[in-house]
């Protein structure tokens, strides 16, 4: 204790130095990864506002624990882990509201202009309607660029399960798009 107090006193300059470098690291982390995190959060909860809250909570926790992040390369996985935990916490606080994404999809499809946007929006609906266990590996693969092994690690599944879920996710998307007149025949 005494050592700690005196250590603090004599290392004042170093402490503020560390603070500054922590700030720099944090800023770099936010700049590089907040977009990915937001998108990932969005695809977990299908709500931009909730996704923003999730990202805010995630980065706040990341700031507090930044010293424990030794490997910058692992930063993204680390943040995703925090965000998933935050999302799970959200469900603990408030029991799952099934109507959540239905509402959102109604709102968002309205003001669409060109065909590309329409197509994107249609596909977003389909992605949102995927069972979560299929959607999450897909989001990690597509947005995170993770391999099957990495996804398996992140989600605590084995790799074969992950590959099967990825297969089912795309398969379901394809099938549901094949039912849509706009997409019909595109993927045959």
């Amino acid at each position, binding site marked *: 204790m005494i050592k700690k107090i005196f250590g603090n006193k004599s290392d004042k300059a170093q402490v503020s130095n560390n603070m500054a470098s922590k700030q720099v690291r944090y800023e770099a982390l936010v700049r590089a990864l907040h977009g990915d995190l937001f998108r990932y959060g969005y695809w977990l909860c299908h709500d931009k506002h909730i996704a923003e809250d999730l990202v805010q909570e995630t980065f706040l926790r990341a*700031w507090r624990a930044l010293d424990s992040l030794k490997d910058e390369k692992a930063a993204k996985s680390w943040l995703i882990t925090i965000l998933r935990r935050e999302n799970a916490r959200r469900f603990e606080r408030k029991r799952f509201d099934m109507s959540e994404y239905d509402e959102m999809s109604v709102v968002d499809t309205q003001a669409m202009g060109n065909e590309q946007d329409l197509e994107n929006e249609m596909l977003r609906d389909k992605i949102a309607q995927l069972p979560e266990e299929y959607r999450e590996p897909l989001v990690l*693969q*597509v947005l995170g660029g993770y391999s099957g092994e990495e996804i398996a690690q992140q989600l605590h599944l084995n790799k074969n399960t992950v590959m099967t879920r990825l297969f089912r996710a*795309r398969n379901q998307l394809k099938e549901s798009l094949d039912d849509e007149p706009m997409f019909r025949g595109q*993927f045959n």
Partner: protein
Amino acid sequence: MNEKMDDLQFRRSIYANPRTQDSDVLEAKKSDPAKKQFAQSIEKLDQQIHRAMDIDVPDDLYNKLMLRQTLASHQQQKSKNRIQLAMAASIAFAVGLSFNFMQSSNAHTNLSDYAFAHVEHEAHLFNNNSDAQITLASLNDKMSSFNGNFTESLGNLISASNCDFGGITVLHLVYKGKDQPVTVFVVPPNSNLNFESDFSNGKLHGEAQQFKNASIIVVGDKNEPLNQWKSNISKDINWSI
């Protein structure tokens, strides 16, 4: 399966990862036009999935995140500062207390202890055959801080300097003695040290007298007639105030 990937296996691999670099899958794609076409259609689907998932990030999210962190760390810093201030205050308080304590409880509590310690510490510096001789005038110059002076020299003065009795400045005089040098200390009044008029440690003995403006201590070896010194001091010293 090494030779030729069956169709189901191929489709599963493509669905699971359209961008797979698996050599079996690549090989199958190359050798079978139907498989190639299937792969391309799923690649197209995958591009669409990428586009669809790549939703816009709110423009102000970065700024919001930075602001939130700044506020949070400011909050943290404030409470940390408060704790540090409190700690600094208690340390200062403790240091103040112990300083006072140390001031009043020095290594020695008796004048006699200091006197012996100084004599023994400096014994090697002086000897009875020293040629040094300090004049009465320069001695009286030093005595002026005590508002006193000697009318006549007590003997052959070898050294006159100030020394420290646990924070108290004392005039330290060394005279030639009978066998060994004799040390006389002039100690200012108001010291917290205990006064003993007669003390001894087997090798040295000392006697002290209290005067108006100072206490005077004489320390010498066993053969030294300290009474003689004491009476000379009483006779020769003058206090101006």
